[in-house]
């Protein structure tokens, strides 16, 4: 009880002193550190891949005491990330606002120009990984190669159900690619979230999906689903039997970026702090183990290199969306 009293007393003192000196001490010479909990915005809902990654990062920070202030995840899934982008763009305190992004970081501003988002204004912090995509079918279908897949899908015409995560999402882009490249007419049915999509395939309510490895891993290990093709430059170590589409003569590579972005107008010192912090997280054994298990790819990118990566990727996405007819 006495200890608590002391704590209260010193709280009172710090409060009193703090009120007087906040202005004076704000720009001290010491390296920048967050002064209050950092808002870590997630462009997706609770329980999804991005959400899991952020909560994992949160535990790495806390476990290794990488930051003196906690990072508090905030889910803003609305409007395919539109809500998150607008929120971070208008952040009241850009030095304490960062965001975990997906490919909707590029596509949502392109599809909804009315939002007035220019990704060039955001502060590059660090690319943590690139997630990969594979083409999956149910094991009971007997299909093991892309050729068999094409034959079966052709035979069923538009009765062949491809489940995905939403209109104009990554899954939709890949489905359109397959339809065009192989002259198919698969029907794209959107569901909420990659986990649900994976389950629809395992429960035979869909004929094929283009899930991330992490979403299908459980069903794959249980012998329910198998990958038959990979949208990567090289075969994935976890699925050595799934050839890349490049090998099959269709030059198509597609990634899902998992990047930490700072709010526009973040101070240089603050940006440097977060860049250093996320480099440490990336190098931690926990994150490296996570990447290996989830079959995530990519090196750490930051600063100008990350910015030019964004601008390059944005053009790629734009070209794809124009080809799909989603934008002009």
């Amino acid at each position, binding site marked *: 009880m006495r200890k608590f009293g002391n704590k209260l007393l010193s709280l009172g003192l710090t409060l009193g002193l703090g009120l007087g000196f906040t202005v004076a001490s704000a720009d001290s010479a010491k390296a920048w550190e967050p002064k209050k909990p950092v*808002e870590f915005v997630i462009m997706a809902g*609770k*329980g999804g891949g991005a*959400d*899991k990654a952020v*909560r*994992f990062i*949160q*535990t790495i920070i*806390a*476990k290794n005491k990488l930051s003196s202030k906690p990072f508090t*995840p*905030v*889910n*803003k*899934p*609305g*409007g*395919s990330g*539109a*809500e998150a982008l*607008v*929120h971070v763009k208008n952040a009241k305190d850009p030095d304490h606002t960062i965001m975990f992004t997906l490919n909707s970081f590029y596509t949502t501003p392109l*599809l*909804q120009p*009315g939002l007035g988002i220019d990704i060039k204004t955001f502060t590059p912090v660090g690319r943590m990984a690139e997630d990969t995509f594979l083409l999956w079918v149910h094991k009971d279908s007997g299909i093991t190669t892309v050729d068999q897949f094409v034959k079966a899908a052709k035979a069923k015409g*538009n*009765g062949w*159900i491809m489940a995905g995560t*939403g*209109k*104009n*999402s990554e899954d*939709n882009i890949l489905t359109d690619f397959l339809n065009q490249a192989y002259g198919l007419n698969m*029907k794209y*049915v*959107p*569901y*909420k979230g990659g*986990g*649900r999509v994976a*389950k*629809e395939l*395992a*429960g*035979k*309510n869909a004929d094929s999906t283009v899930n991330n490895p*992490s979403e299908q*891993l*459980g*069903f794959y*290990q*249980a012998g329910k689903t198998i990958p038959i093709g990979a949208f990567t430059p090289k075969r994935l170590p976890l699925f050595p039997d799934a050839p890349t589409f490049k090998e099959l003569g269709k030059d198509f590579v597609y990634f899902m970026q998992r990047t930490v972005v700072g709010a526009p107008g973040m101070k240089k010192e603050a940006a440097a702090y977060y860049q250093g912090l996320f480099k440490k997280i990336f190098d931690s054994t926990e994150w490296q*183990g996570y990447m290996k*298990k989830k079959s995530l790819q990519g090196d750490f990118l930051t600063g100008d290199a990350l910015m030019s990566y964004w601008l390059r990727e944005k053009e790629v996405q734009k070209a794809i969306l124009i080809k799909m007819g989603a934008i002009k």
Partner: protein
Amino acid sequence: METLALLLNGFAIAFQPLNLALIIGGCAIGLFIGAMPGLGSVNGVAILLPMTFLVPPTGAIIFLGAIYYGAMYGGAISSIMLGIPGASTAVATTFDGRPMALQGKADKALVAAATASFVGGSVGVVLFTLFAPPLAEIALTFGAPEIFALMLMAFATFVGLGGDDIPKTLFSICIGLVFGAVGLDIISGEPRLIFGGIPGFFHGINFLVLAIGIYGIAEMLWTIEISKGEVMISQATVNFRRIMDTLRELLGTWRMMMMGSFLGYFVGILPAAGATPGSLMAYGVAKTASNNPETYGKGNINGVVAPESANNAASTGAMLPMLTLGIPGSPTTAILLGGMVIWGLEPGPLVFTDHPDFVWGFIASLYVANTFSLLINIAFIPAFIWVLKMPFTILAPIIFILCIVGGFVPTLDMHDVWLMLIFGIVGYLMRKLDYPMAPAVLAIVLGPLAEPALRQSLLISSGSFLIFFTRPFAAVIMALAFILLILPLVKIAFEKYKNPTQAG
């Protein structure tokens, strides 16, 4: 027999001192989080997830499981004491729990809720222990048509919940469904009803915003008007004898408890359904099957028992697809799933064979957590009763503050708080004209589940409604839904036939 050995081994793990302490701590924390309006098991589990790296994975999931359980018990507390459902799973508990509290039987309602939760949870865990893998297989085959059929059944069970004024009841259902459609339409990928691009509408209208607006603010304004500032609740007392009396009375409701438990458990297993439809359906069935349905909504103890046993059974049920298939049945299990991945466990059919200590330790801990939640809950009842005895001019501003903070916290967006205030004020004005409000709150929960399922089904079938009748599970559920829909009408017609003098 093998299952029994594994379960006993699990109990040995659950009773290790550290794990036991985690269970008790988790139940107590969960109870408080669940009792706050606006905070439910999702928040509790999500917030405490990063803390769990301090203990081994088995301890971690035991802790989170205990929080989940505690929060499910706690949800009933704010439903009964304040009339504000803390989470969507506890909506049905307000229907009869609140009237009981107003009649000075708050202690009775709380004991009933806790006991029913205990029974529901226990039945759920037993079913879980016995039939985990085969049920998981069935749950897996449930696609969009089955889910839509299930939602239709949920709607069918509560058609009778509204008031006597049919246009007003229908209006309430429709407005809830329309509000549920706000946000992003996932099928077409287009934003919908965002009222000129207000960013706060992108994430849709959260169930809690409407529920707290209506049950918190509107009901408070209404109570203030009616009570004219006096204390509303007749002074409830609580003592050992009254608790024992209540328990004796509860023996008579065992059929309701069993019905709620089984129904809740099976609905809970289904991916994407979760505990909310389960508890609503249990309430609807209890009322439909009752000999005197008119006593429901006026403080019938069965109206507390049925949904509470169902939502706890359902929360156990929702863990089944999570563990065995890696599919979350509810947002809370989605986060538990994330936790398992963080601790280095891959959920799926192999988890039972690869990590038996983890799985069975967890299952056994659910039995233990259930018992402790009951004990902690009953121990705190006098404290809750004491809160109710505060003068209304103190209680009212505290509840208002709880509502506002509770409306803000889930999304950390002031937009939702303003929306809640508007719902509260308009809801109050409509309440005065006898518009029933519960249907709107239920519709906003079920609408966003039903509509995508309907459209996904029609996409799959190229626009043919036959898909709901050609698939065996969907057809059976559809048939049940129609029976439930027609049953109350038949009953009314039958009674009119029996007593023609009373008709009209």
